[in-house]
């Protein structure tokens, strides 16, 4: 029997009624959160962070979580060990007012590291995440010098025991990836998760272009600033209370 048009519409109406009868908040089809693995990063999104440093506690939960997630291990040589995120302490010399904030790759809209890279290894993904393609990185370290935030590190020594999602190797430059492997799974970066769990709940991650996202709403309605805003790099990481 071939269903005719009228019968087909009838089935549709029945299905709609059935789904409407489900408990509120329960969906048969989950709203799309993460991108499908078969979908490319899109220019419609711009991932970013908002860090309220008035809430930033005197802890290093974000640093520990980042280095744990990405398998960044040192050799006890702070001058040459890789550093993806660090805590910076500010102190007003006159008044003694002290602040602390996490500093990492700011995922610039116009990244100087990408401008200077001679091989095209340093690049900005369509959704605003600035990454290093270690397959083409020759370890010249121009980007390390070009970055106004000192966010990049060079891997001086052979690495072993890397995480499957985070390849790291000697002779290449690396920096915060905004936990791109987690973001592609629809999760938040490790630092944000740790800050909200163990720290001062100072960090918010989201899509700067998504009008319904918390980060978008707060950037729209509250004061925020970029570090070295004078360079007009349009950073993806924004600060409050600086």
């Amino acid at each position, binding site marked *: 029997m071939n269903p005719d048009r009228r019968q087909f519409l009838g089935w549709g109406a029945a299905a709609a009624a059935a789904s409407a009868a489900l408990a509120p908040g329960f969906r048969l089809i989950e709203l799309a959160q993460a*991108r499908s*693995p*078969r*979908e*490319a*990063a899109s220019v419609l999104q711009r991932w970013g962070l908002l860090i309220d440093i008035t809430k930033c506690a005197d802890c290093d939960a974000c640093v520990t979580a980042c280095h744990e997630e990405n398998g960044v291990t040192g050799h006890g040589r702070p001058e040459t060990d890789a550093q993806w995120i660090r805590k910076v302490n500010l102190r007003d010399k006159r008044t003694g007012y002290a602040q602390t904030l996490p500093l990492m790759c700011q995922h610039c809209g116009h990244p100087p590291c990408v401008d200077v890279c001679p091989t095209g290894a340093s*690049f900005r*993904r*369509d*959704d605003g995440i600035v*990454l290093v*393609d*270690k*397959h083409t990185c020759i370890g010249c370290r121009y980007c390390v010098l070009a970055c106004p935030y000192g966010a990049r590190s060079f891997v001086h020594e052979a*690495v072993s*025991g*890397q*995480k*499957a*999602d985070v*390849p*790291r*190797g*000697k002779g*290449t430059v690396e920096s915060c990836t905004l936990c*791109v492997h987690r973001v*592609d799974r629809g999760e938040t970066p490790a630092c944000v998760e740790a800050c909200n769990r163990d720290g001062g709940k100072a960090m918010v991650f989201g899509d700067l272009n998504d009008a319904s996202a918390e980060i978008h709403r707060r950037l729209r309605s509250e004061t925020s600033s970029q570090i070295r805003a004078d360079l007009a790099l349009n950073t993806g990481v924004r600060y409050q209370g600086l």
Partner: protein
Amino acid sequence: MMRVAAGIIAALLVLAGFAYAEEKRARRVTVPTVKIEKGEACVAPTAEMRRDHMKMLLHQRDRTLRQGFREPRFSLKNCIECHASRETGSVLGKDGFCSSCHAYAAVSMDCFECHTPQRQARTAARP
């Protein structure tokens, strides 16, 4: 008649000589151990995998890193998932799936300078 027999014997001797030389040559290098640890079939027919696995990996690597596609099919992680040794959990080492063949073919690979050769421990399924 004698001439024909001598000819045949000479031919046989030459063939045996070739076979011996061949065997000796083969013994000079260790024949790779191809031990498939898991799974029914690879992502492509064996002949294609042998010839083209590097092209698949190269293509996938640029798509994943630069464009953000995360298809598991031709990913290095997926290779390691099935081919890592049951004992060592790695594709490297003496009888490692990758390293034994690459040692035989004398082709160096740089993948594992940065990527981990270890199979990942099973994590609990995400809710």
